[in-house]
């Protein structure tokens, strides 16, 4: 919701906002799974007129291992985002998702 709201502010259209929502949902599932975890999650949003970057890190005291990327999540993320990256370890996860505005070239 936050990512979608920010994307709206920077002129992403409905189709792109929908992609961002789907992408954030998918990458968060890959990074964190759907179980309750003991730990801390920090999510950062970086926005520019050309793109939106959603980055997250999680540090956990439990031993649950998140699903990580699989064929399905790779397929979904490749379709809805311009870049994605997920690193999953027992007590630590990181993810990054980039969605570029199609009409405005830029790099981060």
């Amino acid at each position, binding site marked *: 919701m936050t990512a979608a709201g920010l994307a709206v502010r920077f002129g992403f259209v409905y189709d792109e906002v929908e992609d961002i929502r789907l992408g954030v949902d998918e990458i968060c599932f890959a990074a964190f799974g759907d179980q309750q975890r003991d730990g801390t999650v920090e999510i950062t949003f970086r926005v520019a007129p050309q793109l939106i970057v959603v980055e997250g890190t999680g540090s956990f005291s439990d031993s649950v291992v998140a699903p990580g990327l699989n064929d399905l999540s790779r397929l979904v993320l*490749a379709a809805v985002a311009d870049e994605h990256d997920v690193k999953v370890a027992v007590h630590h996860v990181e993810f990054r998702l980039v969605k570029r505005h199609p009409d405005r070239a830029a790099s981060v």
Partner: protein
Amino acid sequence: MSESPTTGELFVLYADTGETAVRDKLVEAHLGLAAYLARRFANRGQPLDDLMQVASVGLLKAIERFDVTRGVAFSTFATTTIVGELKRHLRDRGWAVRAPRRMQELYASLGASVDILSQRLGRSPSVGELAQEVGASEEEVLEALEAGQAYRFASLDANPDAEQGGSGYDRLGTSERGYDTVEARMAVDAFLAKLPEVSRKIVVKRFFEGMTQSEIATELGISQMQVSRLLSRSVATMRAFVRSERNPDGPGGTGRPGGTGIGAS
């Protein structure tokens, strides 16, 4: 031994005294009508017991509102009230998670607005444009779109509109399988086969063929918001298939490490 009072007499008595015992007699006398109407709305995904309760509430409302001096038969008046109550119940239960009425109404109006604006602008509308079209703030539009993901709409594989003839799927035209044999796609293909036909087509067009949601909506002749909902639900369904395949004996959710990965396109 005196005869039992007629319905009209009971209503006059109830209007005069407001006695619960009189109202109960009216309820008892018309429960058959409520049950009959509840059964008419069965097979729409709601338990008959629930519908019976809703119909009974409708009956009570009808008794409270009925004016015997207007010359209308109570059964006629009650039928309208009970059917209204049943329809409202079914409409509200169309939402898997109850969204505020304002959000439900906004979501409904957004569906049409997305399609109208897409046609008018020749591209997907911005949320600002949508907000202007429906007379809401951008935040409200976003909130409604989020809430809309909880909407459990009728399956397009079902026959939601007999007047148009055939199922929703029939109206979509024939399917084509335009995706190739990339390894990841093949792996996902196994899960795709478990999706309803319309959902499968949308997934293929969005994730394999790279079409946008609005393009898919136009091609399939359905709303962009239907595409959005079906896409989200299909991903969740396939995700559950992936998980059950990985961990067929477990309760699901834990899973083995899926490895790390970096992808870019």
